[in-house]
């Protein structure tokens, strides 16, 4: 049983966040000490006004931002000063950015292959096989040899999702993944994300797409001023939000 626990035994909560706070050097208090736990294979949507700490929370989860106090544990590994732990978490937590951040000097294939080869140490052939499979899943296998600048925004974001998935992460973070897209491309990216959710990926999604929240999320967290104002199912938010602040926010975005 102990051995099982060590290498990836079943833990109900894959993300455990305990009282984290973060103040930026310019004095902005982005996170003011909050806690939450996220179940394996669940989809959590984080909503709230800009500057409310949603993105900071997400970026803390894979160590892109340092927390000042509190603790973050990802699948049993604490995110602390230990470099090994940190690297392990970076490998196991994939991230999709608002601005795609594809590598512009590489083809789509090379973008998705890179981490598989350099971090997972796969051979070129193994990596390419995985990549082509993932590109088929996001519906653009024919673009494998194109450069990111030759793709539309929606296509670029789908490649970014495939790139993050290529590492076979246990958790995927989406930081306003559709906010930089033209309206007609939002759908194709959301579809990919929905499929991913149905396949059982643990996802933390910062978004303004309430339709997505309603359709696939298990839980919605409403954040403001660096803390949680209210949380519950999407249905709870749509039918009877408790807090005045939540009602106001929802009335503005719906």
């Amino acid at each position, binding site marked *: 049983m102990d051995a099982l626990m060590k290498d990836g035994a079943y833990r109900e909560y894959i993300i455990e966040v305990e009282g984290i706070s973060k103040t930026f050097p310019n004095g902005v208090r982005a996170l003011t000490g909050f806690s939450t736990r996220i179940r394996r294979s669940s989809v959590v949507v984080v909503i709230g006004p800009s500057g409310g700490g949603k993105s900071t929370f997400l970026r803390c989860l894979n160590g*892109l931002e340092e927390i000042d106090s509190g603790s973050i544990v990802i699948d049993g590994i604490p995110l602390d000063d230990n470099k090994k732990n940190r690297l392990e978490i970076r490998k196991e937590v994939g991230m999709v*950015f608002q*601005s795609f951040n594809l*590598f512009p000097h590489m083809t789509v294939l090379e973008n998705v292959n890179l981490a598989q080869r350099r*971090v997972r140490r796969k051979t070129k052939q193994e990596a390419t096989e995985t990549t082509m499979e993932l590109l088929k899943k996001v519906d653009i296998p024919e673009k494998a040899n194109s450069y990111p600048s030759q793709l539309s925004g929606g296509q670029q974001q789908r490649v970014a999702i495939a790139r993050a998935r290529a590492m076979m992460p246990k958790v995927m973070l989406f930081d306003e993944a559709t906010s930089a897209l033209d309206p007609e491309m939002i759908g194709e990216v959301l579809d990919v994300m929905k499929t991913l959710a149905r396949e059982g990926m643990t996802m933390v999604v910062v978004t303004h797409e309430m339709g997505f929240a309603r359709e696939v999320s298990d839980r919605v967290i409403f954040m403001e001023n660096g803390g949680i104002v209210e949380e519950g199912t999407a249905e709870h938010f749509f039918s009877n939000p408790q807090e005045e602040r939540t009602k106001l926010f929802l009335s503005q975005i719906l």
Partner: protein
Amino acid sequence: MSQAGALAVEFNSGYSKMIQYDAKQLRRIWFVLMRSTASDVVKFLLLVAALTWLMYRGTEMMGYHWQWHRVPRYIAGFEDGRFTRGPLLDGLLLTFRISAWSLVLAFCFGLVTALLRISNSFMGRVIARGYLELIRNTPLLVQLFFLYFVLAPVLGIGRFTSAVLALSLFEGAYASEIFRAGILSVTRGQWEAAYSLGLGTFHTYRYIVLPQAIRRILPPLTSQAVSLVKDSALVSTVAIYDLTMQGQVVISETFLTFEIWFTVAALYLVVTVVLSTVVSVMENRLRVAD
């Protein structure tokens, strides 16, 4: 009267219309001519002719006697049907060797210094900054003399090595600032994407940051390389028989002052133009790959 008047007006207006039309056409022909390659060539030849004439007048007033026909044998020639290098070609080859070594070393120094300045290590940043300021704010000639007369005997290195070291340390300081600018020009998102994929610092630099940075800094880096080739003329001061030194020797033997100096300048020009051309071909290749 009215009929004659009308006729006159008609005639006048027609005439002026014809003139206008011709002027327009002429102007158009003139523009086409001025924009053609042929006119560029003509203009260039005119410029060269004017400069040649100026030079000719100048030297005539000094009473200089041109003897271009004596120059070729100092570059290269045929002796007993065999190709032999003249002193200038020997010098050129040495200049090549010095420049090539210095170029490689300078880029290494530059890259390492830039990485140290960006690194988290306090000592690394201090060392890089110290090297940069010390080298950039003192004359190359002094550095060369210091290396050759003070350090070389201690380290037991020859004049060639001292010269290469002095040149590459000097140009490396400038190159480091170019590298640093290039690295900093890669957006934060690229670093974050690499980070979130689990890539280490080395892999991030090797596959993400440097390939993008180097594309952007190729133009200033080329300028730096051209500078290096020309600055290499200073090594003649420590008795290295490079192109400049050979030129001086030939002049002291033959008194062909202007002919030899012009030839030397032309040979430097050949080297630097070849260098720039190679880089611009590379640049085009990289752009296609984008």
